[in-house]
Structures are given as C-alpha cells and as structure tokens.
C-alpha cells in the first residue's frame, strides 16, 4: 500500500502555562521554591490567586490530527488564538509538542515570517545566500537559483545595496522570492502575502500554485484572507480553540469559519433586539422585514424579491430612502439596490411599505443583506438612520451556460453579450 502522505499529524497537543513562567529571575524562583517548602503562600504569585501559575494550563492545540498528501495545498483557517501558528511552529520544529507525534517526509521550509534572518548591513545578494542557508539550502543550490530569485523579486537594480536601504515592499519581495525558490518538499506559509502590493501578491499566489501543481510540493497556508485561500487551496482545515472543527472542501470550510452556516435564512426577520451600529441617527427604526408570496428564501434567475418592511418613526423625516446592500459569504459588499425618497413620516408613526427588488445579475450563492433606511441631505450627503446586519439572508440560483465559479468569474453575471457584426 503506497502511503503518499508527506505530513501526518497524530493527536498533537501543545500546552502552555498561564501567567508568568517562574519569577523570571533566579531569585524569584528560589523564593517561590522556599515558600512552597514551608507551605507558605508564594510571594511571587498574583495576589489572592493561590498557586495560579502552577495549575492553570492552556491548551493551544488540543488533539489535532490530520494528514497532508504530496502536492496538496492545505489552507489553515481559524480565529486568533485558534492554534494555527502554534501548529506551524511545531511543524517547523521551532518548538516541541507536549503530546502526540508529527511525521514529516521530505524537507520543510517554513516562512513564519518574511525575511527571517535578513541582516540590514548586508546587500540583497548576500542576504539571499544567508537566508537560503538559514532555510536549509546548500550554497550550490542557491547558486543555481540566484538568477531566478533576483528576477522574481524585481529587485535586480538594488541587489547589491544593503537591505536596510530597501523599502518594506522590496524587502518582502526579496524574502518571498528566496522562500519560493527553495528546494523543499513542504512549504509552510503564515500570512506572508499580507504585505507587498497587489500585483506582487498575485504573482506570489500564481507562483505557489505552480509550485504545488507542477513541482509536486505540498503547501500549508495560513491566512485570514479568504480570497487567497480560495484561490490557492485544494483543501481547508478549520481550527477553533485548538481543535480541528472541519477538514475538507474549501468553500464549506470558509462558511464554517465565518459561521455563515449558523445564520439561516428566514422569511420573517425580526429586528426588535438586534445589534445596532452606533453611527446611526435612529430617526427611524426598522422593526421587521418579511418576504412575501414565498415558501422559502430561494430565488431563481429573474425572480424578484418582494418584501414588507415595518419601521417606527422617532423624529420627523422629510424624505426617507431605503437601500439593500448585498454581501457575499466573505462579507464583502457585492451590490446595492436603492429606493429614493419613497415617503415622509412624522414622529411616533408606525409605517410599513412593500418593496420589490430584482437580483438577476447575482451569481448563484447565498447572500446576506444589510438593509438601511437613510436620508439624503441638501448637499447630497447620505445620513444613515437605521441598519441591521444581516437583515435578510437569501439564496439565488442563476442558470448560466458556463459552470459559474465565483472565484473564477466573479459574483456578478452580466447580461449575455450579443454578436452584432
């Protein structure tokens, strides 16, 4: 049986102690030790918290297991403190696990930080060699790749200048180039692309994709940028509080990470006790949004969304407008539909209006809507009175000839082109 896993992580746990570790000084530790010996309270523990530092444990990783196959690109997502970086640290052997075992086949190059070990006084070229050596490359290997590295970094002009004179962008470009050209089997990347301009980010992602597909390297990529995760990864692992909560399909993983799956679409959306933004004037307050003439929140192609909006008026409003801001699953605004100056209302009034919104250009997917009541003042400025997110969740089904993938073609399907000549 051929085992083509390059990484196997087997029930790995990593424990950290909470509080300060020891007194920090030899004297402090001796004091604590002497106090414990006499069953007195530790003079270095926090006031009132007996033996705090001794017993409080924190599991940064709590029984994590998964495998990575050769040539696979695995995304690692999770909130802050979920254990992503700890896991990468264990894989790159910066620190050791408390329990469990990690098995790695092949050479690992880790980029937990861009430009690790760059020395400001040395020139770009010297740093390429130094950085290469730190990341485990032989001198000859760097020699063979130096031209590619310089070419990729777009820093040829400055390559013989000390890197302390580099702009931060150039620094990152050079550092990434070294790492991307490493002769390793496994690459660990921790949000290295967060820096560098858009063009270079795109170049890096393309490079990583080609590295994985053509050279058969495996990549573990940690990022908070769902866009790049979608572009790059074949598979995604969601960590939450040191545990793997999901391992599989990228889109599903991102939904789980963003907790999109916890928000379900409802026909009747009650706004009576929900989160309010504090920049709103609250002149009017929305009470509910209800989908009309439908059994569910699924809309096909040209189908219009008809809904009733109920709201209360707290102050007199001359010209009230309403807009629906449509967000995709990555919480990015995709489109907005507005209805201007549809009414005026007096303080204390309760109103309800029925609207009809067309969403035909949207590609298939689940969308979340931020409905906003607003006014437009004399100089054309928009003053938001009330908004609720998500005020509505709906699904749109769009039939296209293309097998529409949002990461390839975008979230908007424009009308089909016609050939006129």
């Amino acid at each position, binding site marked *: 049986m051929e*085992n083509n896993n390059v990484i196997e992580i087997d029930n790995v746990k990593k424990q950290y102690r909470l509080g300060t570790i020891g007194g*920090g000084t*030899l004297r402090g530790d001796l004091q604590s030790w002497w106090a414990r010996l006499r069953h007195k309270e530790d003079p270095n523990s926090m006031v009132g918290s007996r033996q705090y530092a001794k017993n409080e444990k924190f599991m940064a990783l709590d029984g994590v297991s998964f495998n990575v196959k050769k040539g696979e690109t695995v995304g690692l997502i999770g909130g802050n403190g979920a254990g992503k970086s700890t896991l990468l640290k264990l894989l790159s052997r910066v620190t050791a696990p408390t*329990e469990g*075992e990690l098995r*790695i086949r092949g050479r690992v190059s880790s980029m937990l930080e861009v430009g690790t070990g760059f*020395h400001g006084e040395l020139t770009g070229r010297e740093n390429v060699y130094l950085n290469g050596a730190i990341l*485990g490359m032989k001198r000859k290997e760097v020699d063979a790749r130096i031209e590619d590295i310089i070419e990729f970094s777009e820093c040829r002009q400055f390559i013989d200048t000390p890197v302390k004179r580099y702009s931060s962008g150039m620094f990152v470009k050079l550092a990434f180039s070294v790492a991307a050209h490493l002769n390793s089997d496994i690459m660990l990347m921790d949000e290295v692309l967060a820096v560098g301009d858009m063009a270079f980010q795109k170049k890096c992602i393309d490079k990583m994709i080609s590295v994985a597909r053509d050279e058969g390297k495996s990549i573990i990529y940690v990022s908070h940028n769902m866009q790049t995760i979608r572009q790059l990864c074949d598979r995604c692992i969601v960590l939450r509080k040191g545990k793997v909560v999901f391992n599989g399909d990228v889109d599903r993983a991102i939904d789980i990470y963003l907790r999109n799956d916890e928000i379900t679409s409802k026909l009747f959306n009650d706004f009576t006790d929900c989160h309010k933004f504090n920049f709103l004037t609250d002149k009017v307050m929305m009470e509910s949004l209800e989908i009309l003439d439908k059994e569910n929140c699924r809309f096909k192609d040209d189908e219009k969304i008809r809904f009733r909006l109920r709201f209360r008026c707290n102050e007199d409003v001359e010209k009230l407008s309403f807009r629906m801001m449509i967000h995709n699953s990555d919480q990015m605004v995709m489109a907005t539909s507005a209805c201007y100056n549809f009414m005026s209302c007096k303080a204390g009034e309760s109103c309800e209006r029925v609207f009809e919104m067309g969403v035909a250009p949207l590609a298939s997917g689940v969308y979340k809507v931020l409905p906003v009541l607003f006014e437009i003042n004399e100089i054309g400025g928009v003053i938001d009175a009330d908004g609720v997110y998500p005020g509505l969740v709906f699904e749109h089904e769009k039939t296209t000839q293309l097998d529409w993938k949002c990461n390839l073609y975008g979230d908007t399907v424009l009308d089909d082109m016609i050939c006129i000549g």
Partner: protein
Amino acid sequence: MKKKQDNSWSIVIRPKTGWFDIDLKEIWQYKDLIFMFLKRNFNSAYKQTILGPLWFLISPLMSTTMFTLIFGTIANISTDGVPQFLFYMCSNAAWGYFSTCLTSTASTFTGNAHLFGKVYFPRLVSPITSVIYGLLSFLIQMLLLAVSIVIFALRGQAVTPSIHILLVPVMLLQMALLGLGIGIIISSLTTKYRDLSILVGFGMQLWMYATPVVYPVSQVKSFAAGLERLVMLNPVAPIINNFRYAVLGCGSMDYGYWALSWAVTFVFLFFGILIFSRVERTFMDTV
C-alpha cells in the same frame, strides 16, 4: 490504526527527547549555514567604518599597550623576563579567545530568539559559529604577535618559542570546548533566568584577574607559597600558563594541572550538552 515503525519519514517530531540528542551529522549538513553566519559576522562587523577590518589589529594593539602601561610600567609586575609587550599580547590573545567563546555562546538563546523562533536549524550552529569566529580574531592577533616577536628580536630582545608550540591547537580546542561548555550552560539557564547574562559581563572580568593573564604564575608563588596551587585549580590558568610557555618560552610547562583542567572541561561540556538538548526543543516557550 497503530503504525509500525516506518523508516521512510525524514523527520518525526515527538514531545520528549533523550538526554543526549545532539545530531552531529545534521550539524555537518548545515556547514554552509555556519559559513554564511561567519561571513555575515565578518561583513557586518565593520560596515560603515573607515578603518574596516583594520580594527581587528587596532583593538588588540591598544589593549596590549594599555596592559603594558598599567600592569607593566605602573604596577611593575614581573613578566618572567619576557618583554612586557609580548607577554601581555600573548596572554591577551589567549584569554580573549576563551572569553569570546564563553560570552558569545552564553547569549545564544537570548540573542537569537528572533531567529530561533521562526525557523529551524540545529541550534548548536550558532555557538559553533561564534567559536570559529573567535578563532579568526585570535589568528590575527597571533600574526600580530609573530610580527612583534620579530621586531623585538631585531632590537635584541629575542624570545624563543618552545617545541610545545605544536600543542597550541590542542590548547585552542580546549579553550573552545570549555567556553562552549560553560557558555551553553549559561545560555540554557538564561532562557529562564536573565540574571546570568548580567553576571557573565563582570564575571568574566573578575575571572580574568583570578587567572594568570596579567601576571605570571611565578609571581603568585613569590607572593605566597602554595597560593599558586589554588590559582592553577582554575581550569583556564594552566591553559594560559602553558600557552605562554609554548609561544614565548616563559615560565614552565605544567602537565598535572592541565590534565585536571581537561577533566573539568569535559565535565562542563558533558553537562552543557545535557542541558542544551533539554532546553533546545522548547526554549521558545520560556525565552
């Protein structure tokens, strides 16, 4: 799904490692890194200086002159009949090498935390680098000493190195090992206790005066008989003493205390590596 012992894994990371877990073969694989570190240290040390690598010559010359003035001319300490300048230059080079080995090894973990925290390479690479780097400035000082000996010989103050000069590499090795051993112990402990790094600074200075660096062993003997035995228990003392005999032919060769000093060296090295291999894996969590 218990896995059988599978040899195809290149790295297996487990929580606890054995007491003696230093992979010398791996360090050899990283020889290029050692070389790059050396180059980095050398290149970056004197960047943006006018005199550049000349400082390698100037600083030992200055301190030797200083020693000659203070201990030779003002304090009038005997130098066993050897020209004072040569005596101090010789002692200074040897002590300087030992001191460099120890202090730079002692700051291995704290000084490289930013690097160790981000990328893996055998941690011993960095103390080894400092030991080799120290050797570089030692060799330059030796060259300087050789030139000085010739100049003094031309002026009629000849010194004759003994045949024991062939043992100098052994002495160097011992100083490196001793410095490495003690330095590693200190660096492993400084990941938790920063006190030690402060101690190292002035501790080395005190240690220098306890070692026959600025005075010959014979001076101690004439001061109080028997005291020299105490002085020679210091593991560095016999090395410096023998080194001076080998290079300048002053004093006498001592084998008894030297053997003892070797034993002490191995003890320190043994415990050093022992502690190092414990700390190496997880020091990032405590540093």
